[in-house]
């Protein structure tokens, strides 16, 4: 199966980390809904792609998961941010801020600036 582009996978992972940081432990559906609310249609289709990303983060040690009870009292897997995950999120957030700032400056540049 074709892999997602690295950028897309990377952003999704960062969004997951940020969501968990803001809202505390959540199950997969909860995370998907939050991301959908904020990002618009990134997860409008293919919500399922979230699960391999969650697994990857867990194998990397950025999140931990355990079974718990959902709103309607069924068994659900809850994900929470680990200390390592928080550090990773902060580092990646900084990188993103820098990158977007540079890209933004490029987009605003006019011909005379480059002359």
């Amino acid at each position: 199966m074709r892999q997602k582009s690295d950028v897309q996978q990377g952003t999704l992972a960062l969004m997951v980390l940020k969501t968990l940081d803001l809202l505390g432990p959540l199950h997969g559906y909860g995370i998907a809904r939050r991301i959908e609310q904020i990002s618009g249609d990134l997860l409008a289709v293919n919500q399922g792609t979230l699960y391999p990303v969650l697994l990857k983060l867990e194998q990397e040690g950025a999140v931990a998961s355990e079974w718990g009870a959902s709103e309607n009292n069924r068994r659900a897997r809850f994900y929470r941010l680990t200390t390592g995950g928080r550090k990773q999120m902060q580092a990646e957030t900084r990188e993103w801020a820098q990158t977007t700032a540079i890209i933004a400056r490029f987009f605003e540049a006019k011909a005379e600036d480059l002359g």
Partner: protein
Amino acid sequence: MRWARRLRKRVANFVARERGDERLREEMEEHLALQTEANVRSGMSPEEARRQAVLKFGAVEALREDYHAEKGLPFLENLLQDVRYALRTMRKTPGFALVTIVTMAVGIGATAAIYSLVHATLLNPLKFPHPEKLVRVQDDLTGVGARDVGLSIPEWRDLQRSGIFRYVSLEGGGSVNLTGSSVPARILFEPVTPNYFALLGVKAELGRWFDPTDQTPGFTLEAVISDGLWKRAFGGDPQILGRSLRLDNDSYRVVGVMPPGFHDPGRTPDERQTELWLATGFGAYPGPPPVRNLRLGLGEIARLEPGDSLEEAQSRLDALVVSLQKQYPADYPAEAAWKVRLVPLKESVVGSVKQPLLMLLGAVGLVLLIGCVNVANLLLARSSARGREMAVRQALGAGRRRLARQLLTESLLLSLAGGLAGCAILFSARGFLLRLVPDSLPRLNDLAIDWGVLAFALAVSLAAGTLFGLAPALQAGRKDLTHKLKVEGRGSTGSQEQARTRRVLVITEFALSLMLMIAAGLLLRSFWDLYRVQLGFNPQHVMSVRLWLPIPNDPKTDIYGTPAEEAPFLREVLRRCALLPGVQEAAMGQTEAIPLHHGRNLYPLAVEGHDVRSSQLPMVQGASVSPDYFHLMGIPVDRGRGFTAQDDEEAPMVAAVNESMARSFWPNQDPVGKRIRLGARKDPIEVVGVVADARTESLEAVQAPQVYLALLQRRDKELAIFLRGNLDPATIPERVRAQVQAVNPELPVFGAMTLPDVVAGSLAQRRFSMELVLLFALTALLLAGLGIYGTISYLVSERKHEIGIRLALGAKPGTILQMVLRQGLELAGAGAAVGLAGALLAAHLLAGLLYGVTPTDPATFVGVTAVLTAVALAGCSIPAWRAMRVDPLVALRDE
């Protein structure tokens, strides 16, 4: 490290077969339930809510695969799956698997065997620290055509002082009589300068080296012995250090034992077997006085300074030579043109076998390549038989790359199995194989089937598997699926493209086989010519036995110090040996008189009446012999006379020369009655006879000038007894020993050989490489025959339907036969054309290995092509005969 942690988890999951299916299923269910509820809350009907939730979730199968891929190691999982599948296929077609594995086992095993030879000789022959810094110093008198004449002692001292080298050592070769053990033994020894071991850089296992700064001019009375001698003669005595050895009646103290596996980097096979080293500064008794133009025929080894290259050292050496020539104009006349060369030590040890070994490696590589082509052909045939299976799997969604990978896994597995079998055979037969290698193959370390060879075999297996698996794998991905599904089910198989590939493979195979066979043919002819060469002497029924008279350090204790002292001993030994059972004739001579012995005994020659302007004289090979030598060896005396019993210690010195020498020094004159001087001796020697040329120096060499001296007039120490008659090789050595030791019980008698063995031995290396190449060529021929048989059989079975129609329409069976044979011959012809062109190009690489034939010998080329064509015809005739007998009814009904 995040990735490391992730990898660890994945490996753990892979090993534990933890797939996480259950967890994913549960999470998905929960997700969909929650989404459905949310949809219902926003007003959808329950069915619609569920449907929308599923849609939003996305493709479940794809997700599951991604999830698995993340959880474990998909590459390894696929590999395992492929391997399992391949093993199952192999079990289903055991015949095919067996043929492939055997072909590969032969190819890879043979390649690894030859590689082990190359590994031990060419790749790493010198087991010394920084071997690349070791060089041999060789000097030539290019003006008088003398090569490698050896340095004199003052020249060696000049080199040492020059600062060009870290060390310069001299080494001689010889044997010494070790007494004190039960039977007097002859030990190969080297007198070396005290810095010899410091130069080589190998530490003694026990004790120490000689002191490299020792300035003693004569022998230091210290001895270093080899591990082998220590164990053999002293039972590995731990108290060996300080023990005294009696060598030629002189007493030496053992100061060191070299480690096992240490081999002397000598110039000859004998020198490389050295077991004892004695330190000497040379230039004092028992050697001659150090005179600048007196060359001792010693070897010189030097170690370059760590930062220096060979070129830098050579250019500084050239400058030194020029300044020495200015300083001593009388010793270095311009017309002698003294030159000193530096040759890498490795080159000087294994340079002579580089070409034959590389040729063998090339030949065995060709065999392997032909094997690969054959297997590729088989695989192609099978892949066309499996075409439908592949098409179905493709239709079911298997990716092309996935299919290709699976086919490649299969071929790699076959090749690895073949490699493994090859190595197993090699390993179990190694004792036998090592015995086939001639002893004369120069090497300083032991041949072994070791890890290096196994790693090589593994690499070769992988390469071979990829090579022969590539064609079917590439084709697997390339086909038009619909067409294939439609066609594959029926009798006709394989596409045009596949047929073309198979033809190309067979042509390649034929071309490679032809090249190999031509090489084998040329080598065989060279060997045959040498084998039947006119020797100029008759080795039949002749044996030689060696003995050695001691040279004590104190001349006063030498009981054979003058010809007058030695002659009675020689006469008595000869008289006794002539009485031995079966002996018809007996003679004696210097060791150099043993034909093909490769000993060098060069004398500077001055011919009376010739203008001698310089002190640099031409060098001729000389040997002293007893009166009956020429008759015993069957060397005819052409002019004058041979030696007689009257040419003894009291009579004036006489010599005989061979025809080559007569031609070189007395062109158009009769040398008989002329007078010459040899070496440092001032008294003239009269030439009394001219004998025919004989190939006593080497079988290949054109004749070299040779002078014979009368043994009774000399005091030579290294001797050989020659016997002709009805001899028993098993008892002669003991009988001769008894007779010699009856005269002097302290003398070692050794080295008994029959001359036919000596002649055969000098052909051993040639025979070895010729036989191997011949074996490889026959293997290649067999493979090529099988290849063309397979391909033509396949083409016939493919055209069975067509042949059936032709026969039904009235074609004669003979026409069908012709048609099939023509097809085979076309392939063979194309292969032969390519192969002949390749052989013409490649044969020149063999030029140095040939004797008596040119690399483009037409007879060989034509003959080999004819043989190959015959094999092609034989290979085609079985399928052709089958085609002729096709029953039209059966062939058509099959459709």
